[in-house]
């Protein structure tokens, strides 16, 4: 039995050689592209920040105060819009959410500008089903 095996391996070695033959990959294009490798998700051993910060731009920070100048009052009555002084870093989406959270009204559209004194003014036009005068009374600045 052992002698037979030995004879067979000797025959194989004589015909095919003792090292294994690796097959060369057939390349169909001349360009070499990055092969797809395994990408693992992160599993951190500790969180880098101990406490995640509370949202910094909350509704109280976004809207600073309403304006009650003559032109603002005109806009209130005629165009159903409220005029606010707003944080400079606030954007229109944040202003819309803040107005929703604070006063429970939907804004149809918002226009903003930055005054020469550096503060941001927001014209918040309310939807047709909300009355700006009522909201202003509720806020308390009529």
């Amino acid at each position, binding site marked *: 039995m052992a002698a037979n095996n030995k004879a067979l391996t000797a025959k194989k070695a004589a015909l095919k050689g003792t090292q294994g033959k690796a097959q060369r990959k057939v390349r169909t294009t001349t360009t070499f592209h990055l092969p797809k490798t395994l990408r693992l998700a992160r599993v951190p051993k500790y969180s880098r*920040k101990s406490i995640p910060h509370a949202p910094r731009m909350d509704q109280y920070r976004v809207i600073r105060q309403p304006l009650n100048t003559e032109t603002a009052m005109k806009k209130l009555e005629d165009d159903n819009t409220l005029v606010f002084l707003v944080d400079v870093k606030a954007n229109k989406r944040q202003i819309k959410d803040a107005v929703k959270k604070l006063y429970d009204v939907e804004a149809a559209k918002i226009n903003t500008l930055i005054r020469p004194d550096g503060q941001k003014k927001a014209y918040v036009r309310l939807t047709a089903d909300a009355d700006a005068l009522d909201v202003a009374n509720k806020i308390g600045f009529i």
Partner: protein
Amino acid sequence: MVAVKAHELRNKNKAELTKQLDDLKQELASLRVQKITGGARLQKIGATRKAVARVLTVINQTQREQLRLFYKSKKYTPLDLRTKKTRAIRRRLTKVEASKKTVKEQKKLAHFPQRKFAVKA
């Protein structure tokens, strides 16, 4: 309004504190509205701002203190709970690491300590 005191705040739990924070911020907003309508309660605005700061301080202090207790037994702690000192100091060898000696050095010190001699008067 009763002045908000920190030692009273520390007895409250987190839910109560966040609620108080919200109330204070709303009050601050209404005070700002009153300012433009000529209400003129300007001292209250300052006091309310400081009260908001006090509540936030108490919230954060107790949170961090609890976290430090939680991480005391663990190997890795979050970076902002580790000692800050300076970058160079953090990279220095620890006292234990710096005092380590090779066996050869230990033997030398044991066999040939610094001798002290005195001249008899």
